[in-house]
């Protein structure tokens, strides 16, 4: 922990809070029937994206998942353009053509949320290959869930990354569920990080609700990757607060477990730490919260006031010219 400065922790706090408030708002809007499509919320897992992306620049790539809002915000996505995309507006990241599961911005190094579980894994490997080929010192990070680590893409992607010694970091967000399937029913091991052995790459399991731990671990893996030392696998144990998607009550979760994990909320944990270390007072934190709430509200206003895409150019952008 020693390495993490006050400024960094406060930055982490802001990012995590932005994600949380974005998700809270999305939940509210979805419940009110104001968002089309499917929405999968990242609440509870904010420390992972935040801790990992803290060591990335816009030249680095990430691939995200169906549960992508957190990754995108942590990688620099603007909440107004994201919210506009959830509203299917033309001012959204995808001009209203993608929606929650496809938000992307190649300029920010975001190669997309993805509606296909496990699809980001080979894509991240390809981006990492581009980094290596172009010798541009950049890396790629692939976020995916515990259940996604059962897909064939996981296996092929990690093996190829290892054989080619690519600058890619595989970050498994183990929230213990693939929809209703408890990890113990979808794999026969406790730590996904053990799967690194199959590829001869480093694998480690950490507390995914401790942003500083995530930051430190990811920083090391990223710097090894930048130095040409190849890929690694980081498993972050975490928990999703909501159901799988909005509309799923999550009845398959053990009630007590849910309560315990809510106590381990990464944002609460960080607030405590900030206070214990005397990095921030309650009032300051409150101020941050208000400021971020303001941004989220502004994002909603922006989204609401934005026009829908014109049906006239529905055919545009299927092919690049």
């Amino acid at each position, binding site marked *: 922990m020693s390495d993490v400065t006050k400024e960094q922790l406060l930055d982490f706090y802001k990012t995590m809070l932005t994600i949380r408030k974005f998700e809270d708002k999305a939940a509210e809007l979805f419940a009110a029937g104001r968002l*089309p*499509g499917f929405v999968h919320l990242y609440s509870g897992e904010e420390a992972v994206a935040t801790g990992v992306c803290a060591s990335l620049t816009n030249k680095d790539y990430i691939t995200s998942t169906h549960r992508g809002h957190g990754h995108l915000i942590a990688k620099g996505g603007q909440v107004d353009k994201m919210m506009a995309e959830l509203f299917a507006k033309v001012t959204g990241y*995808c001009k*209203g053509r993608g929606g929650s599961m496809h938000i992307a911005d190649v300029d920010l190094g975001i190669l997309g949320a993805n509606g296909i579980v*496990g699809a980001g894994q080979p894509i991240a490997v390809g981006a990492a290959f581009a980094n290596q080929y172009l010798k541009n010192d950049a890396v790629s990070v692939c976020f995916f869930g515990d259940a996604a680590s*059962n897909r064939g893409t996981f296996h092929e992607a990690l093996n190829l990354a290892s054989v080619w010694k690519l600058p890619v970091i595989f970050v498994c967000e183990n929230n213990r569920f693939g929809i*209703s399937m408890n990890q113990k*029913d979808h794999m026969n091991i406790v730590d996904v990080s053990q799967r690194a052995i199959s590829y001869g790459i480093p694998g480690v399991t950490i507390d995914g609700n401790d942003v500083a731990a995530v930051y430190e671990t990811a920083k090391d893996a990223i710097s090894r990757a930048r130095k040409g030392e190849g890929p690694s696998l980081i498993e972050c144990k975490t928990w999703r607060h909501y159901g799988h998607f909005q509309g799923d009550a999550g009845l398959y979760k053990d009630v007590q477990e849910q309560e315990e994990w809510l106590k381990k909320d990464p944002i609460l944990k960080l607030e405590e730490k900030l206070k214990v270390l005397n990095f921030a007072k309650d009032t300051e934190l409150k101020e941050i919260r208000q400021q971020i709430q303001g941004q989220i509200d502004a994002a909603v206003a922006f989204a609401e006031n934005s026009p829908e895409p014109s049906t006239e150019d*529905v055919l545009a952008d299927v092919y690049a010219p």
Partner: protein
Amino acid sequence: MKKMTYAEAIRDGMRVEMQRDANVYIAGEDVGKFGGCFGVTAGLFDEFPGRVLDTPISETAIVGHAVGAAAAGLRPVVEIMFIDFMGVCMDELFNQAAKMRYMFGGKAKVPMVVRTPCGGGMTASAQHSQCIEAWFTHIPGIKTIMPSTPADAKGLMAAAIRDDNPVMYIEHKQLLAMSGEVPEGEYVIPLGKADIKRAGSDVTIVAWSWMVHKALAAAEQLAKEGINAEVVDLRTLVPLDKECILQSVAKTNRLVVVNEAVRTSGFAGEIAAIVVEEGFDLLDAPIVRVTALDIPVPFNAKLEAVYLPNETKIIAAVKSLF
């Protein structure tokens, strides 16, 4: 007869077959206690202990294991949560399930059903809204079913499970909640029989799945304008009831084919090709296809509406033939 939704009818079809035959079982992601992403298998987990199995997210293994289980004597009914995920397990379907019998000189049977929902209109965007049935129809050795009503859903499910071949049983998300009369108990609709959902004399509209309802609605409108359309619901794409289509065209001399899939190389083209090849002399006008646009399914509801076929487009197509 009992009123049921399409989803309930599918379930009832599976239930009756599971009662009849102990070798029928269900496997897929979240199909167990959770009852399936769209609730189609709800309750079966408790009703049939040990016969409704949750799997990891491993479509390749889901379809691949079904091939082995079927060849070894069982009758798997596997669920792929969205048809859009079939790209992950096409090899298991097209190189294994479909070809095993032929490659093995006729000495294997692969009685398996892949149930999967297709279709748009839910703002579910490009990877959760597709209609790719044409791919399956291009694979000799499998059968492809797309029911449009609760009763058909039940009767075709029974036939699919009893069939000794791999069957793609394609549901439509828009129809799951649709309600209708469904025969109770054992009820089997033979594969390969189209159904005339509306008789008519002026033009034949061939459709399947959700589009049958769009075609029927269009036909009602057209009737008011004096055009009496016959709506042929294919129900089974492979094997195809060519005779039914050709007979209808023989009567109407005009054909519109409605298909929710993207236009190029969709199954609507196959229908048109068959009719121009085998029924050229019956035709008094071009065959018009009403299909989705050749683009990925857009998220925004208005864009998606432009993308999809609909009543208005069908009516315009029909009128263009007169």
